[in-house]
């Protein structure tokens, strides 16, 4: 039968243009354009914006949200969402700083404990999502509040100070051509490189996409989808713990009120970066670009003297714009 030898998609006249899986290009292009536009706009508004020092500052500010956004990307790729990310980051910061100061634990061990606690919360998220089959939205809304309360209770709503130097080492800077860069920024970029590799080049990473594409079909193919989900939530939790360390290193204290804006910022970064809230599509590097867009907006608006309430407002508008773009492009693809 001749039908069986018809040529596929390549020559279909009404086939839609190239799409996500082809690679970085399409997915990342949109947010990159947004980034360039934002930078251009703020450069016209403030003389300080384009300086190397400010660039370095943006990168430092973005490091925390950027690392959280990696974990958030993993969760969103599976078709879920993690609302607990910012509060877990705050909790991890308080745990590691209190352990190191009040308990007098060696800094490395205290850091490990902080990351361990956030990973444990990730495990709880994952278990509730996989075993009880609760929607991730409501599970993480619950753990978000639990983590917030735990942070306030354990810290007594007090900032933890007098940290051992090792704990803030990632906040130290080095100079490249007269501009200071923090080691935290390097750590963030390294984590993005690892996440990019795993998601793109390994079976485990591809399975994350497959679960987000069609969980039931993926299970029937023989992939342990529950385990994939569980690992994603635990790894995301651990990444929030790493973000705690970056936050502690940058500010030099354990701040119980950290992470308040990071929930929305991280989700905004991921969605701006082209990862679909419907799961299964997106590129983790896009989230880095998205985090930079969010960081540039916050930084630029601060330089313009706009109050932080308006920054929250702008982030809210940004996330809605990004989700709308996602939804419209999905609809166009069908």
């Amino acid at each position, binding site marked *: 039968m001749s039908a*069986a030898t018809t040529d*596929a998609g390549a020559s279909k006249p009404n086939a839609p243009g190239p799409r996500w899986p082809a690679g970085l290009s399409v997915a990342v292009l949109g947010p990159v354009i947004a980034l360039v536009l934002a930078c251009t706009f703020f450069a016209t508004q403030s003389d300080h914006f384009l300086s190397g020092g400010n660039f370095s500052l943006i990168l430092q500010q973005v490091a925390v949200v950027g690392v959280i956004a990696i974990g958030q990307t993993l969760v969103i790729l599976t078709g879920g969402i993690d609302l607990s990310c910012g509060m877990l980051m705050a909790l991890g910061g308080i745990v590691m700083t209190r352990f190191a100061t009040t308990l007098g634990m060696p800094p490395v061990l205290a850091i490990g404990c902080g990351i361990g606690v956030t990973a444990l919360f990730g495990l709880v998220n994952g278990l509730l999502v996989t075993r009880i089959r609760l929607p991730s939205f409501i599970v993480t809304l619950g753990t978000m509040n639990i983590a917030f309360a735990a942070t306030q209770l354990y810290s007594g709503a007090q900032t933890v100070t007098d940290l051992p130097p090792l704990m803030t080492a990632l906040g130290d800077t080095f100079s490249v051509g007269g501009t200071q860069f923090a080691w935290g920024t390097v750590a963030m970029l390294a984590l993005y490189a690892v996440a990019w590799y795993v998601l793109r080049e*390994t079976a*485990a990473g591809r399975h994350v996409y497959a679960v987000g594409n069609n969980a039931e079909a993926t299970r029937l193919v023989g992939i342990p989808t529950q385990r994939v989900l569980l690992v994603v939530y635990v790894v995301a939790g651990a990444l929030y713990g790493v973000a705690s360390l970056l936050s502690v290193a940058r500010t030099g204290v354990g701040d119980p009120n950290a992470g308040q804006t990071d929930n929305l910022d991280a989700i905004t970064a991921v969605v701006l970066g082209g990862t679909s809230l419907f799961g299964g599509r997106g590129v983790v590097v896009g989230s880095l670009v998205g985090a930079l867009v969010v960081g540039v907006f916050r930084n630029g608006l601060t330089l313009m003297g706009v109050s932080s309430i308006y920054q929250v407002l702008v982030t809210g508008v940004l996330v809605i714009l990004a989700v709308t773009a996602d939804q419209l492009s999905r609809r166009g693809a069908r």
Partner: protein
Amino acid sequence: MNATAQPRVVMQATALVKRYGQVTALDGSDFELRAGEILAVIGDNGAGKSSLIKALSGATTPDSGEIRLDGVVTKFRSPIEARRAGIETVYQDLAVAPAMTIAENLFLGREMRRPGWRGSVLRQLDKRRMIEESVARLAELKVGIRSMSQALETLSGGQRQCVAVARAAAFAKHVVIMDEPTAALGVKEGGMVLELIRRVRDRGLAVVLISHNMPHVFEVADRIHVARLGKRGCVLDPKKIGMSDTVAVMTGALRPEDLPRDALAH
């Protein structure tokens, strides 16, 4: 049955029983599948057709009865176990992962890693080899899709189903089960998939085809298993019986005993 003169029996089930609470979905159902045949499974809604297929593909475990694969009693606790035993199932919902490439879909769950340390230490996938293998597999089955690195969703429904069938054929050692593979397709696309199913059979695999579409069943089936009231009503020979009589048997309007002797398959 006079098994000596017949081709080898690949899969056999006897007296399968499956209850869901008060409902008895399978009430002692038998099943026999031979090497290199397309066995259509038809039945009215609630006849136990899908429960039978679920038991055979490992999606459910029957309460009693036994399933033999190549003469050996087997028990599948999950589709994964059935798959490991060489039984591949193509499901009605076409795509596996629509946003992923054809090569990725073909090798999902069976990915190949690069040789050497990049594969063992870095666990890096051998994308090029998977693409080459995909090209070879699809060419073997004469599925004319050129680029293996395009997303599955860029294909038409029929082409996607061809990818799903090719995937099953590539990895099945014994049996390919197809659950309504042409249900969502147009005439031409359906024909393309039927042609492919025939090629899969011609490569020596045993194919179970679940379908509501009588013309499709009659076009490709070697034998027709009629599920009725949770049992195997009868097995018909499509060359010796017409479509309307088949439907009558399926719905119970005609009893298998009243059929001419040679309408029943041996």
